[in-house]
């Protein structure tokens, strides 16, 4: 690919590079397109408007966590505890609002304050994670694994394992109200991805993430305040994970003490097949979005096709594997 493109325009390597970068970004599109075609063949209702809305609505929460994780991965860190934030942030918000008779704290906060608390909790946890990783210089993988367990335990403890049902409608509004027929949660994900994608590509701050993830020492030498930026990324990721938790709450209609459990594997899968490097410094938002959509489409397709339920997981995994291979072949780039 490089050869054929390079020969006629050997004198313009500067124009070549973004084109190549763009290629990698869209590496997953052929796989996605193949799946959509397959879906249309397998089931008549796959390509209907309402089914596409279903896929998007079901993927919104995942998309927000993938966005959060992608930002952290690009910065060269990792945060596994995001899946627990998805549970505990809306959980605490709900406990502050619902009456004591419904297992709440009995503080009886108004709904808007509870929802605000969700984001504050998410941001605070993110900031704390950032502090552990940036200030104390603990290993991000291990420390976030510990935080994953702590936060999950805190939610189970605070709810005594109960499922919270009796939230005011405002808690569900983000997934139940629609704009142009799409749930607000989808719009939220779109806006967040748009802002993040634009910032990463064009803004000084966004470029700083790549620099830090690529080589923190070089970034520091170039005048980037590495610690401060990393810390900010962790905090933003916490807020995004909390937003994802709110979307999931609205989608499901309750908060289970297990909310978000094991989600991080799906998040990592989406990010990595979307071309985000686990080693930091590489990956784009467009790629991450295609990763999320691919997983959403596969899940929807398997349900519609009514594959034998015992085999669904195996087929799901196999399709992810094939998608990885296709994106490797089409991009011609080694995956990290």
């Amino acid at each position, binding site marked *: 690919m490089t050869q054929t493109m390079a020969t006629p325009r050997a004198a313009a390597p500067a124009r070549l590079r973004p084109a190549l970068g763009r290629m990698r970004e869209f590496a997953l599109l052929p796989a996605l397109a193949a799946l959509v075609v397959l879906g249309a063949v397998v089931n008549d*209702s796959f390509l*209907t408007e309402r089914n596409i809305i279903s896929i998007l609505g079901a993927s919104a929460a995942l998309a927000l966590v993938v966005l959060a994780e992608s930002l952290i991965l690009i910065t060269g860190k990792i945060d596994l505890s995001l899946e627990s934030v998805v549970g505990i942030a809306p959980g605490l918000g709900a406990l502050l609002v619902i009456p004591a008779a419904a297992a709440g704290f009995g503080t009886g906060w108004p709904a808007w304050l509870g929802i605000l608390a969700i984001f504050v909790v998410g941001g605070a946890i993110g900031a704390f994670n950032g502090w552990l990783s940036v200030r104390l210089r603990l290993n991000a993988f291990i420390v976030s694994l510990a935080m994953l367990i702590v936060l999950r335990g805190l939610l189970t403890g605070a709810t005594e394992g109960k*499922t919270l049902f009796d939230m005011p409608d405002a808690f569900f509004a983000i997934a139940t109200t629609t704009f142009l027929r799409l749930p607000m949660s989808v719009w939220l994900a779109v806006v967040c991805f748009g802002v993040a994608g634009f910032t990463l590509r064009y803004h000084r701050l966004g470029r700083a993430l790549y620099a830090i993830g690529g080589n923190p020492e070089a970034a520091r030498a170039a005048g980037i305040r590495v610690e401060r930026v990393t810390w900010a990324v962790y905090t933003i990721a916490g807020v995004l994970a909390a937003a994802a938790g709110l979307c999931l709450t609205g989608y499901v209609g309750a908060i289970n003490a297990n909310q978000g459990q094991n989600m991080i594997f799906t998040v990592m899968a989406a990010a990595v097949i979307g071309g985000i490097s686990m080693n930091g410094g590489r990956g784009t938002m467009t790629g991450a979005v295609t990763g999320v959509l691919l997983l959403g489409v596969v899940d929807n397709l398997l349900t519609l096709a009514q594959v034998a339920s015992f085999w669904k997981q195996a087929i799901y995994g196999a399709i992810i594997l094939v998608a990885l291979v296709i994106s490797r072949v089409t991009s011609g780039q080694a995956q990290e």
Partner: protein
Amino acid sequence: MKRTTLAAAAALTLSAALLTGCGSTKDTGAGPAAGGGGQGGKVGVGLPLLTSPFWQAYNNYVPTMAREQGVDALPTVNSNSDPTQQITDINNLLNQNVRGLVVAPLDSAAIVAGLNQAERKGVPVVAVDVAPEKGKVAMVVRANNRAYGEKACAFLGDRLKKGKVVQIQGDLASVNGRDRSQAFRDCMRSRYPDIKVLEIPAEWKAEKAASGLDSLLNANPDLKGVYMQAGGVYLAPTLQALRSKNLLFPAGDPKHIAIVSNDGIPQEFAAIRKGEIDATVSQPADAYARWGMYYIKQAMAGKTFQPGRTDHGSEIVRLPSGILEDQLPAPLVTKENVNDRSLWGNTVSR
């Protein structure tokens, strides 16, 4: 020469010391419980998880029922969905010299190591909710999970006669998820051949239930019935998905989708009263605790049991593995009997 003898002697002494210090996990740490007349002694109670309303209810019933049956039960131990942790918990309880164990196995195979350990110490075990594949247990106290699936099938089948229904399945790697799925499917196939069964393998996860039902309704807007294998997890997402598709009509409305649930938690009862769902199979949390305590007390006194009908409306059967199981009845709760005070879902706070 001398040095070799010395070394050999040293080796001999050392190995002797090692041998005497050596033991095996087969040693009986405590004498058999029967020695003390079999009545007294503490009973350890193991829980599989505490994140479901059902197990919370069971957990609350344990001390009450222990008092009722005159059993000295230790505070419950929660294995938090981890089968390995459960083995550790059993060992810890045995080290506290309990004279009886009531455990709810997370995994029918993985629990066997713990059961063997208890057997070596001469401590009788009653298994609740899940029958171990082998190993020695005095009794398995379990509602018949196949009956859950069949009850749900009969309810939906009699009401609908034909059309499409979906079962939102539990984890197919768990015996309870498998039994309910299989029974529902088999019953529909043999008794209601005009009903087509769709499936969502949701692994006891709310978001999987929501996205599965959401997708399925796009392809099958003519869906007539839903069987949720765990109301505690699937109730909210099912209602939410129907609401978002404008398909949630109260019972009695011709467009109402018939819904049968499984668990018997207060939220399901509230939904039945509101007409959002039609019925639920009440999994007897109180009976689990009561009969668990009853059988452990009997077993500690050295009693053994025989297959056959019991005096509490259930039947003891011998499983293929030779283990005895008391199959407790699970009542179907509908609008008619939803206010019955004897249902455990009406006795606990939400």
